[in-house]
């Protein structure tokens, strides 16, 4: 009986206007979106390789980076083709300055202002906005409409259990929407593979890609179940469609945006700009104090005329410089320690504040399945909220390497108004390279498990609701 009902649902929808609309929309939006994002990714990848090449050419040795500091570049995320996420906002360059610490910069500029004003198309957008709407369109009158037409009575007058009817409706409509989605996805994937630039089937990428498809299917199922639920709760299809559209607008568009803005109001965090200004003010004042202590020390050891000799060769030092050099070590260490602890304290506090606000916002927003989907997809695509902390950790590691291999070899003498330096580079070693952190699949899963569980939960709850509502549905 289930097979027969399933066939009926499929054939019914296959010849309808809705199917044609779904086919057209999917075929236009999904492959075009993938193709355009692919071209954009290729451009960004080229810029990245160029930047790395030019940097390595200009800075072949450790000495060459000792004054200007070391630079690292962030490789564009392959799966930003599927989910743009934060890709255009993450830093492109990480600069380790010997004086000021780490700077992040984003030199993409405003290359395409119209895209910024009107928005981009990626798989995430297509599924969470277009296909979810289509899912609602397919199911809104599946129960209420049949009641209005009178065919539901006829079906139920047979010995068909109600749950079989419901399941056949769900499966039938899902398969029908899945056809255009699958076709356009295959076309899009073929475009990507034929370009040669997207190693979709490599060991590290394939599981991510499959998981992205899986979460998309979960989200589409949520909207199918929602459509079924509302259709089983109303008796007129026009009421059902109005309610569904409003729910869709609320959960898909309005609620995620509201929740993040509410979190910003509940728990405001200092902006990055003010934070970096405070950090550089603090560093400057520490620098001033350090220099004052050095000048004091120099006066004490009787170096009131001239300046200490700034050469690492201790045989050429005069007695004043010798005393100065041995005593300054303590001062240097004290300030290095102060700097390290204060900076890491400031950064830790700022990071915690931002993280707390982010967590509040995320948790509030998880009431909408679209938010859960968004978090899962962007994390899988490498353009989500996991990226910024990882970049910061990598940058700090890079800075430590630069400190150990480069900055420590620069011999500096600092007084109030004087800085003498000379360097001590024996070999022509290449400078440390910025190594992008590789995220393992299990790490990513750990990050998104909650969202995936929530998506499954939404499906179960909504289907249970539809089941109960249909069981009690008055067919007369």
């Amino acid at each position, binding site marked *: 009986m289930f097979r027969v009902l399933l066939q009926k649902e499929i054939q019914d929808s296959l010849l309808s206007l809705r199917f044609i609309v779904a086919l057209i929309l999917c075929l236009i939006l999904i492959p075009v979106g993938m193709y355009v994002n692919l071209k954009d990714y290729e451009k960004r990848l080229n810029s990245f390789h160029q930047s790395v090449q030019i940097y390595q050419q200009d800075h072949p040795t450790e000495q060459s980076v000792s004054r200007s500091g070391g630079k690292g570049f962030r490789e564009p995320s392959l799966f930003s083709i599927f989910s743009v996420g934060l890709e255009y906002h993450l*830093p492109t360059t990480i600069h380790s300055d010997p004086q000021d610490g780490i700077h992040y910069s984003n030199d993409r500029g405003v290359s395409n202002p119209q895209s910024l004003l009107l*928005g981009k198309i990626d798989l995430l957008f297509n599924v969470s906005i277009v296909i979810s709407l289509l899912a609602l369109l397919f199911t809104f009158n599946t129960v209420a409409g049949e009641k209005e037409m009178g065919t539901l009575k006829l079906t139920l007058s047979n010995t068909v259990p109600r749950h079989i009817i419901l399941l056949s409706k769900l499966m039938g409509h899902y398969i029908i929407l899945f056809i255009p989605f699958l076709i356009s996805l295959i076309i899009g994937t073929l475009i990507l593979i034929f370009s040669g630039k997207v190693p979709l089937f490599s060991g590290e990428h394939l599981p991510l890609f499959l998981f992205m498809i899986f979460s998309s299917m979960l989200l589409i199922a949520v909207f199918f179940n929602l459509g079924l639920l509302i259709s089983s709760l109303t008796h007129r299809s026009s009421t059902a469609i*109005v309610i569904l559209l409003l729910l869709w607008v609320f959960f898909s568009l309005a609620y995620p945006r509201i929740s993040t803005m509410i979190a*910003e109001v509940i728990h405001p965090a200092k902006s990055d700009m003010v934070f970096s200004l405070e950090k550089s003010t603090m560093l400057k004042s520490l620098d001033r104090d350090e220099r004052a202590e050095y000048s004091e020390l120099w006066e004490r050891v009787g170096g009131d005329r001239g300046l200490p000799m700034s050469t690492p060769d201790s045989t050429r030092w005069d007695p004043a410089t010798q005393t100065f050099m041995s005593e300054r070590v303590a001062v240097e260490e004290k300030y290095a320690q102060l700097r390290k602890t204060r900076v890491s304290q400031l950064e830790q506090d700022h990071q915690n504040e931002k993280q707390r606000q982010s967590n509040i916002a995320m948790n509030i*927003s998880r009431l909408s399945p679209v938010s859960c989907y968004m978090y899962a997809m962007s994390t899988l695509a490498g353009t989500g909220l996991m990226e910024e902390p990882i970049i910061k950790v990598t940058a700090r590691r890079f800075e430590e390497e630069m400190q150990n291999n480069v900055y420590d070899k620069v011999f500096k003498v600092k007084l109030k108004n004087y800085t003498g330096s000379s360097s001590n580079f024996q070999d022509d070693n290449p400078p440390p390279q910025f190594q992008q952190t590789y995220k393992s699949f299990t790490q990513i899963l750990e990050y998104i498990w909650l969202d995936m569980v929530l998506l499954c939960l939404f499906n179960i709850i909504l289907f249970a609701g539809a089941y109960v509502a249909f069981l009690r549905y008055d067919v007369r």
Partner: protein
Amino acid sequence: MLVNIIKKELLDNLLSFRFLITLLLCIVLISLGIFVSTKAYKNSLNDYQQSLALYRESIQGQKNAIGVVAKGLRPPSPFSIFAGGLDKSLPNEIISTRKNGLQLGNNRTMDAPLSILFGKMDFLFSVSVVMSLLAILFTFDATTREKEEGTLGLALSNSIPRYQIIIGKYLGNFITFLIPFTVAMLISIIILSLSGVMPLFQSGNFVRLLIIIGIALLFISVFFNLGLMVSSLTHRSLTAQITLLFLWVLMIFAMPRVSSMIAGVIYPVKTQQTINLEKTLIRKNIEDEKANALKNIFQQSMSGDMDEGAKSYDEIREPIVRNLRDKEMRLLDGVDNDFLSRKNSQLKIASILSRLSPLASLTFATTELANTGLLQMDNLFSLSQQFHNEAVREIHSRGYQDDIPGAGMRMRMGWIGADQIPQFQFQSTPLNRGLQACWVDILLLVIFNILFFVGAYVGFLKYDVR
């Protein structure tokens, strides 16, 4: 008779479920959006003022022209409360240095990652997505429901011209919608004036606000007319509904986004990163050329008497350095202008393609008036260039620090007062220039309205009521 029809439509709607939902959504989304946008704007403004104060403090004791980093900061646009536009994406830091020339930076990119992921909840979003959908929900069954229920036949059996019915439907539905919209706008204006971020009743601001609201109403009216048109061309509510949703998705989501992406593929433009790399390369080459030239001069002048040599080095280097600086500026300007003209061509193609959808016209017009659009971008770039030129004139051309290969550094101080460092004054575009930029879009919205209303009119005139 027209008034009676309008009254009937009004009463019909007022007691319906749709009206209640519209009231709720309008009030919640618009007022909440304005409230939160106001808070965000206040924070941005605070950040800007703090940064400016800290910058001014840091340049207080600056006496040496060498190593001066002249900074300019762009304040957030007050009307970004209504239409975020490019406000968060445009550079907000203009840095002019001797070594790296003019650099535009944006240090707010990672401030609110969740806002970036989901998008903003500003007035523009509420109007363009939510209100347009509500407009469709009001009118999709305007004609078809009455036909299905049989009341259209009854109405038409009276001696009432068909055009009065269709005009009455449009006006009745639109006025019903105006009620919650007006309530929401009043609440928002109260919130805005209570917050004190903007002197709302200063003439310029109030007129601007009225025009923005007017454009929003024009846009919503387009969708009312579209709903009426499709309803008058179909005979079942269900068909009308599906067709309208399809058109809505196409106009609001598909066409605007696809057009800018297609323009990027038809007419590709190099990325900003590539351009920056090219400029860095040019600067490096000029630096090398300068170093070589200076080395020669230095060797020549130092071959004789030290004092005489120093003076002659000063004199000889000046014209050579100036020539090289002009050459560098020419080359850099060449790269910039080339890039700019290609970007503008791509932008033109994209904007023409996107204007097939009324959403594009709404977005462009509203962002231009809110000073968060393309005009603001052009304004920023030209003011930055002016700022840099002034900095070069007043600061970067005084004194020098030449790194002569093989002979160390040769320096001559340039003493300046802190008040010689140019201050960046950012002026927003005045209202009349903004209107000049967006009259095309306003006209397009009017044309869409007329087009769809004529479609509804003709469709209804030929409508088979049986």
